């Protein structure tokens, strides 16, 4: 009842014409920022902060949050069309999204991404509204051993991302883990693998590696196959540009998976949406009946990660609003905005500012509807991009990649790194090494190492801390189970062969 009253109050705030307008401005800006690789929501929100002083705080908060979740909608666009991840959380979307585009199903992929985003985004807000305070308490029981187990679970997904050769997948993952080790060690301030370069002190930016091994390598491989230079097929007719009923049916589980995994991992201050997107993709593949076709353009391989990164925003707002604890770059800037407007984010924020909280929640329902209405008609338009001939498209991909990397860091060194990782991606592709495990190792490596070392410092060096805690023990067992999947498949195949003969 209390929630219903709060929500009524919230809609009264969010439906004021000015706030509706700010919501629209936010989600449109967010979509644009999401589409452009490199420029992310934290930088955009920071740039807009001075403007928000002229607005009332509710309108400003509604707009800034709109940028945050709107960017998650836009992030899939370049992943699917150009194999250029628009946001770090959209890297996984490249795996099946781009393959769908190559088969002439770009429209279906973009459409399913928008629908998954809408469903999961709405579920995320529901979660924020219904269970925020109790869930924040549960999230606090997560500490370094649990984070280590979560990362181990993520890393176990490598067996699901492997192509034909498990050894090659593991080697690629190890390379990713090594790259994650580059930079200044947090615990001892020792430099590792920096080769005397100051730019490497803070490590290698994940976006640089992802754009390199996906987008640049893709362009290089296509340029090499010169005689095959052909346009990507784009079917005629609006109907063929949208997801089919069968697509929607195939995604039933992915919608739920993305919504729940994204929200739950989003609530944890030390995880992040990139990790969540890998875990939901792995989960999707683990339970799928057509496991072997993942990576060749299956629609649920797009729906799960795209859902995740939208419900994650609802989750990430939970510790921010209930405890004043930011878990990511974007929520840190939102926290700063609240302070600058004169609020005191912390445990008493929601009880003392109910109108702002409920206004924000209501605006997020409205904003998600706006985003769906905004994004679905854009699908056919974006799909036309692929009609461009290769001699136009590939330079554009290179340009977008370089500008994206440069705009994220403002460093030419990162552009050089992009070229290097592009070459690495090309060589890996030639030798049939999968790129996804490399990215997985890179995403999880740093956080996993930190969590392990923190755990061991907490336990004074005893490894038992990792299995003595129930949540961590359960997750580690799950990880072990996933690692055994290929074994089960082999046993099953052997059994079937035995039955046949």
């Amino acid at each position, binding site marked *: 009842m209390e929630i219903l009253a709060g929500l009524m109050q919230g809609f009264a705030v969010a439906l004021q014409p000015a706030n509706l307008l700010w919501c629209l401005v936010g989600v449109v800006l967010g979509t644009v920022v999401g589409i452009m690789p490199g420029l992310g929501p934290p930088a955009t929100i920071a740039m807009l902060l001075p403007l928000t002083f002229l607005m009332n705080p509710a309108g400003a908060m509604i707009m800034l949050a709109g940028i945050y979740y709107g960017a998650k909608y836009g992030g899939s666009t370049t992943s699917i069309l150009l194999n250029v991840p628009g946001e770090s959380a959209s890297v996984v979307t490249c795996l099946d999204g781009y393959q769908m585009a190559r088969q002439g199903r770009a429209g279906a992929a973009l459409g399913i991404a928008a629908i998954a985003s809408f469903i999961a985004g709405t579920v995320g807000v529901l979660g924020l509204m219904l269970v925020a305070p109790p869930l924040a308490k549960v999230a606090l029981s997560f*500490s370094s051993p649990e984070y280590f187990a979560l990362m181990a679970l993520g890393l176990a997904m490598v067996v699901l991302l492997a192509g034909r050769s498990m050894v090659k997948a593991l080697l690629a993952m190890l390379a990713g883990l090594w790259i994650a080790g580059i930079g200044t060690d947090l615990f001892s301030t020792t430099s590792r693998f920096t080769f005397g370069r*100051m730019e490497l002190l803070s490590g290698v930016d994940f976006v640089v590696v992802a754009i390199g091994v996906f987008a640049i390598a893709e362009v290089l491989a296509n340029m090499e196959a010169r005689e095959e230079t052909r346009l990507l097929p784009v079917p005629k007719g609006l109907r063929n540009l949208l997801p089919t009923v069968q697509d929607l049916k195939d995604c039933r589980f992915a919608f739920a998976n993305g919504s729940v995994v994204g929200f739950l991992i989003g609530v944890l201050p030390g995880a992040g949406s990139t990790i969540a997107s890998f875990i939901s993709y792995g989960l999707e593949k683990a339970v799928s009946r057509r496991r072997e076709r993942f990576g060749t353009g299956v629609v649920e391989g797009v729906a799960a990660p795209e859902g995740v990164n939208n419900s994650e925003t609802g989750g990430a707002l939970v510790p921010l609003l209930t*405890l004043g604890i930011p878990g990511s*770059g974007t929520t840190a800037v939102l926290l700063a905005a609240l302070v600058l407007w004169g609020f005191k984010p912390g445990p*008493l924020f929601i009880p003392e500012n109910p109108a702002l909280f409920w206004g924000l929640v209501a605006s997020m329902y409205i904003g998600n509807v706006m985003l769906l209405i905004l994004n679905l008609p854009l699908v056919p338009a974006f799909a036309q991009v692929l009609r461009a001939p290769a001699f136009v498209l590939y330079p554009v991909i290179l340009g977008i990649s370089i500008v994206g990397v440069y705009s994220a860091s403002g460093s030419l060194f990162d552009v050089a790194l992009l070229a290097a990782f592009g070459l690495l991606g090309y060589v890996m592709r030639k030798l049939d090494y999968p790129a996804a495990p490399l990215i997985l190792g890179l995403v999880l490596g740093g956080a996993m190492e*930190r969590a392990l070392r923190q755990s061991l410092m*907490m336990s004074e060096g005893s490894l038992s801390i990792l299995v003595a805690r129930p949540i961590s023990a359960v997750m580690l067992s799950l990880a072990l189970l996933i690692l055994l999947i290929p074994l089960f498949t082999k046993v099953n195949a052997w059994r079937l062969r035995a039955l046949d003969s």
Partner: protein
Amino acid sequence: MKEIAALAVMAFAGSFVEVAFAQGFQPTRPIEVVVHTGPGGGSDLLARAVALMVEKEKLLPVRMQVVNKTGGGAAVAAAYLAEKKGDPNTIGFFTGVWLTSPLTSAEARVSLKDLTPVVRLVLEPAVIAVKTDAPYKTLADFVAAARQHPGQLKQSGGSITSRDNVVRQLLQKHTGARWAFISFPGGGERMAALLGGHVNMMVIEPAEAGEHIRAGNIRVLAQVSDRRLSGFPDVPTLKEAGFDVPAVPQVRGVVAPPGIPKENVAYWEDVFLKLTRSNSWRKFLDDNQFEDGYQNAAELARFYDEFTDRMREILKDAGIKTVR
């Protein structure tokens, strides 16, 4: 050589502030303000808040534009400023890490001493907090417990060169007690570790602590400050609690690229002096529980040396290898 030149410039500028300003330099282009943190980090927020206040108080004829040069502690931002040698329209916001990262990373070649000092602006005090349900009522209780169980109590914090660990090292040296320091990269994770009961103690910014005290989540044992903060009238300072260790504040201030004429330095000193006398500034300090740390360029240069010497000794005590 550069250092000597810079010192000469500062000494000169310090004595002629008013005169130099009367005939001096005026920026003509928007001012590029370089910070070493990403959007939302401490320096970034201070720089953006200052840009807003400077605009509101009409202290500059042009806008201030924040540029984030992240990476390598502060190495990337410092190197960027060094490259801007002689550029009158660029300044940077520094913190203590600009002085400590060259001590521990061979790759961080540009130190604050290679840049032109302008002003010190802010001192950020801190408070020492435990969870409400912890058995420690005073800092002495905590230290006694740590002495009883060496290495078993834990403190969450940032990097080992951060102020959190400096406070720990000083307290450990003073008392002979030992407890563990667990590094977390993000402020949110540090706080979550304390609230979740995974660590026993944390050195925390007063403004952040304030809300958790009101909600009854944490208790403050002592403040890392020379004077009691307005928000914590009943909490003893380290000295009052019986721990005669220096109250190491986090410092923040302004530097300019090398090779800046003295009248430019004098101009900036004047702009920031006016800023620190404005009402917006006082409100800003109060909201954040910061202390006014204004020092002019000459004083700031002396502060560099004191700070660097103290940090070098603390790092040595902590068993951290210094490279310079």
